[in-house]
């Protein structure tokens, strides 16, 4: 089957493409890109150049390029942006073990609706993804899913922070990174070994940076508000101490470190300094860390309970600055669906997390609207950079990844997000495709939304 996306504003930072043009997809791969008067196409392509006849859209019905009508589907993307499919390198799909919160099927449906074509799922399932058979289960299950699922393995067995997992075997089965997300590795020696050992396989260690002894049983940001609400606080230092520790360990070992969900001004500063020194470190933040302050928990709203907690205005400013200057490479969702009954509880007892896949793009486009990021930078943060960090730009050993992702280069998987930056959408949690309706953004009006998500050549309408 062939698909043509016509007249869209194509953005592909990997090739420096930024212009109006057409994309041709054939058999789930990018076959050709045509930008106004220039052309990027496969050498083997049999489609002839349409240069000589500009008023007629290329690949249109009539098949001047030799494409038969019956096989061709045309998408008019005039006025829309066409960007490489979004890659979310931090989600919780809950399967196996917590299917009442989310399944791979519902989670990937939510991803597609949010404009994501690839999601990377954290290992804190039950059983935990700390061995190849769980990885294999997730991969097998994900074949039913609408988008590509790439599992992240645990760093240590049972996420206990004691013994490393079989990273090589798990990589062979499809793991693309390792993380003890949610239960950070507190033992510095084990973290050092993880950063050293993973070098053999070229996969990153993703660190949830939190000094658990300092957080103790905190449930929100520490400050006047936590005192006022009578809720136990988690100081910014609890994150920053571990960000600094892990940066030092990455420096010591030369390992590949990726810092998850950066939430504080101090962390941005530490990462910026490390990058200046040439440390092999990358970082992500999540939409809620640049969209909401701790004020969101004022009513004891458990939907705004996340870990790390929502911080302050000055942290938001620093995170935006970090996104702008490249200190923060990636916007990920930390999609953490929970059942309604679990969130309808005492604030202390409710689990942390936000169901984020279906609001992430709209919230991130606000940064473009505000002039913090260009649309090109947004495509980098939500597609190219995750692909680069996870090694998805080059063909992967795993049979699961059939071609490069995060790029529209000819021969890549046809993973494409078509978005409208002007369209206004009201967030309706009850209508989420994710099982998790837990969002503090319910009722928000977001400007900008994905219209069509194409995953491995399959076309999905988002609304």
């Amino acid at each position, binding site marked *: 089957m062939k698909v043509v996306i016509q007249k869209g504003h194509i953005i592909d930072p990997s090739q420096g493409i930024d212009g109006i043009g057409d994309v041709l997809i054939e058999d789930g791969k990018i076959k050709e890109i045509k930008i106004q008067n220039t052309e990027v196409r496969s050498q083997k392509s049999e489609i002839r150049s349409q240069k000589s006849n500009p008023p007629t859209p290329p690949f249109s019905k009539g098949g001047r390029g030799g494409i038969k009508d019956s096989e061709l589907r045309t998408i008019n993307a005039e006025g829309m942006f066409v960007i490489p499919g979004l890659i979310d390198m931090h989600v919780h799909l809950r399967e196996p073990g917590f299917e009442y919160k989310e399944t791979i099927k519902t989670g990937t449906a939510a991803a597609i609706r949010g404009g994501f074509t690839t999601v990377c799922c954290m290992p804190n399932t039950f059983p935990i993804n700390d061995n190849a058979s769980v990885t294999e289960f997730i991969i097998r299950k994900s074949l039913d899913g609408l988008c590509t699922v790439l599992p992240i393995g645990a760093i240590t067995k049972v996420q206990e922070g004691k013994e490393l997992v079989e990273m090589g075997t798990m990589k062979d089965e499809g793991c693309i990174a390792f993380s003890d997300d949610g239960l950070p590795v507190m033992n510095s020696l084990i973290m050092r070994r993880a950063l050293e050992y993973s070098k053999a396989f070229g996969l990153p260690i993703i660190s949830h940076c939190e000094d658990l002894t300092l957080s103790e049983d905190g449930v929100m940001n520490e400050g*006047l508000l936590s*005192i*006022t*609400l*009578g809720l136990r606080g988690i100081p910014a230092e609890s994150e920053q101490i571990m960000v600094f520790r892990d940066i030092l360990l990455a420096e010591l070992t030369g390992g590949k470190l990726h810092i998850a969900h950066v939430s504080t001004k101090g962390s941005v500063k530490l990462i910026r300094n490390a990058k200046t020194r040439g440390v092999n470190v990358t970082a992500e933040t999540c939409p809620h860390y640049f969209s909401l302050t701790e004020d969101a928990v004022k009513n*004891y709203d458990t939907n705004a309970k996340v870990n790390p907690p929502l911080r302050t205005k000055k942290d938001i400013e620093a995170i935006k600055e970090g996104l702008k200057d490249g200190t923060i490479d990636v916007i990920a969702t930390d999609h953490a669906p929970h059942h309604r009954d679990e969130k*309808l509880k*005492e*604030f*202390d007892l409710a689990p942390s997390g936000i169901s984020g896949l279906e609001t992430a793009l709209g919230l991130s486009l606000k940064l473009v609207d505000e002039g913090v990021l260009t649309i090109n930078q947004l495509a980098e943060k939500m597609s190219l950079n995750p692909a680069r960090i996870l090694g998805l730009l080059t063909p992967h050993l795993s049979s699961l990844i059939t071609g490069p992702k995060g790029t529209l280069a000819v021969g890549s998987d046809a993973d494409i997000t078509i978005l409208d930056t002007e369209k206004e959408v009201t967030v309706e949690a009850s209508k989420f495709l994710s099982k998790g309706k837990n969002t503090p953004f319910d009722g928000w009006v977001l400007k900008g939304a994905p219209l069509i998500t194409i995953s491995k050549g399959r076309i999905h309408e988002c609304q």
Partner: protein
Amino acid sequence: MLDNKDLLGIKELSVENINLILDTAAGFKDVLGRDIKKVPTLRGKTAVNLFFEPSTRTRTSFELAAKRLSTDVINFSVPTSSVVKGESLIDTALTVQALGADFIIIRHSSAGVPHLLAKKLRASVINAGDGTNEHPTQALLDAFTIREKKGRIEGLDIALVGDIIHSRVAKSNIYGLTKLGAKVRLIGPPTLIPREMEGIGIVVFHSIEEGLKDVDVVMMLRIQMERQGKGFFPSTEEYSKNWGLTLERLSLAKDDAIVMHPGPMNRGIEISSEIADGPRSVILEQVTNGLAVRMAVMYLLAGVKR
């Protein structure tokens, strides 16, 4: 009339509402001094004490306050309830409401629980202490006691001594007393006083001698033994030596300063017996006033239009 159907905290109360409660309590205090201490004001109403934390003093006070108003009262305490069978908080509260409760008086170890219930229930929710957030009726009875003893609250220097950070009594008093115009100071070790409090116009002292100088009211807080050994203070002996209230230290306050304590006291640790039983102590009057204040709260909440 009060603005809301619930009493969640002093934070949420206007100065007018606080004064209304205090004025109404004065009337009920007269009732309590009579030979027949019961009024038919809220006959036919039902109050439920929903206590998820052990409490004798507060629960008894609410129970008696309800009875003095001719309200039926039921005690629902956790160890005997369905909560241990895994029932959710909301379900427990809805069950109690379905039994016909007009007032749900709740104590819980988690902050914000009364707020959560208030949103879900038609009944009036009265916060009888939620985690380290607030204990509004305690602050109201303290304000009532100070007003009665000193004739005013505005302009008074009031010292709160002890574990501020974990004390819902301290929090509610800080909000209430500052709203009513008092100058509040906090005294205790740095581990037990949140630094952020200094930002909201409150003066912090780590030396009790400096802090007590010329105050009108000394409000002692209970030191919880379980804080010992957790890094807040090394031992109760050391705590007592540095922050316990002795006659010598009390002499630094104004000559007519009163001493308060929400109870239960640790005699010889945060407060010496000579002071607790001495002429400056108003500790037992606080208990009596608690009844009048809780009657006033229930009476006024019953009159709030839904």
